[in-house]
């Protein structure tokens, strides 16, 4: 194509990177008060799920990807932790939101809206970038699922 884009890079790190991060987050959780009573299982589920997502975001390249940044930011907001990001992101978000508001007339943009709601940080991206981030997100998600499945299989008794 004559658009002179650099080749789209959607490589994700290997499984062990994801596994390492996830296990680290799990051991962190265990050090906290994890053995709650069954009535609070929902909280535990939420904690584990959040740990899974955060570890995935960290394993998938930290702050180099937009959705990982959005995930970490979302997670940190709940824990009131201060996360350091570059200021530029906020301005880009504002500009993108403004230009995106104009677009929903086009049919394809309506579907892009749904994708935006799913992928974290999707509201701040243009459509082409959104699709690229979606591809990367799908790869990371499937890697995370594989890791978790392996853990469950390995740790469940025969």
């Amino acid at each position, binding site marked *: 194509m004559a658009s002179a884009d650099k080749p789209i890079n959607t490589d994700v790190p290997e499984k062990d990177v994801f596994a390492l991060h996830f296990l680290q987050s799990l051991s962190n959780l265990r050090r906290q008060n994890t053995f709650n009573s069954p009535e609070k299982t929902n909280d535990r589920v939420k904690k584990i*799920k959040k740990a899974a997502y955060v570890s995935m975001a960290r394993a998938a390249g930290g702050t180099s990807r937009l959705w990982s940044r959005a995930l970490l930011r979302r997670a940190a907001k709940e824990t009131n932790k201060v996360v350091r990001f570059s200021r530029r992101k906020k301005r880009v978000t504002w500009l993108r939101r403004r230009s995106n508001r104009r677009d929903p007339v086009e049919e394809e943009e309506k579907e892009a809206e749904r*994708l935006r709601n*799913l992928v974290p940080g999707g509201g701040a991206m243009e459509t082409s970038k959104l699709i690229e981030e979606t*591809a990367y997100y*799908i790869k990371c998600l499937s890697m995370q699922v594989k890791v978790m499945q392996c853990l469950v299989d390995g740790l*469940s*008794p025969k």
Partner: protein
Amino acid sequence: MLDSLLTPSTSSHMQTSATTFDHKDFLNHIFASAPWPSVDETHAPQPPPSDVFVDSRNQQIMMMPLSSHHQNDNVDGSSAHALYSGFSATGSRPFHIPQGSGGGPMHQQGQTQRQPQQQASASTDTGGTAVSPSQSRTKVRARRGQATDPHSIAERLRRERIAERMKALQELVPNGNKTDKASMLDEIIDYVKFLQLQVKVLSMSRLGGAAYVSSQSSEAGGSHGSASSAVAGGNQPTGNSNDGLTMTEHQVAKLMEEDMGSAMQYLQGKGLCLMPISLATAISTATSHTRNSLIPGAGDVGGRPSSSNLSGKTVQTMNTLKLNSNGNCMAEGSSSIAVKEAVSISKP
């Protein structure tokens, strides 16, 4: 002076661009205009010798149409300005100079030449805008007959970029053989939702085993929160499990009257799930040959230590139980992600 201004900076641009112009138009236009000698006298600092005169003239042939565009009335000048604004600054800057100096003598020819020049400029316009994108930004060359304004070019580029990335996505998503863009997007969205659901369920399943173990050990009377005691708690004889299950059933029945969702959650917290009786019978027949052997699981809390031991028995007892008119019954199992969990239940 005109030569020195024009030749070095524009030789790279104009030569290549001039070759793509329609030569015939320019040559016709040039020979139609008579200003050759006057231009030479006004612009050249010293009149070049006759043999070189031809060469410089040849060079000027290339340059002349472009400069003469500028040297005419302002209307043409502005259109030519617009034409050359796409070129780099070094290319366009020299044209400003001859316009100021050459405006005078060219004026009288301006009126006569306006018509052909406008046509020529119109033809060069499309040619110019066709060329300029390919030079300044490597883009797809605009075809004649299509709109060549930058908006549609950018629009088309954006669409191509999106299509390219969609193609890359298609390979990732299973069932990506749909050619329709709308259905492809639907597939992608469903797949992302499915993956997120998988993560959620997997995190629940790991939790479910742990909760079940901890609840069992607490029922057994005192848990130390360590893996060994949890396993020991899980290996309790069936009497305890039956009592526990009866209690659970009553609890679930109570919860089901108020809200199905809370009942499900309660069950999931215990590592149990609700399923139709037909499915339960299918699972029990599948696991009937493996349920008798139990290997004490020395695994971590994340496992389901006694699920295999209890699965067969509880499934049988559950078969005869009808909790509500729907025909649902409780059965072991930590998650409902299809085959994998059924297989893990049946592990010896």
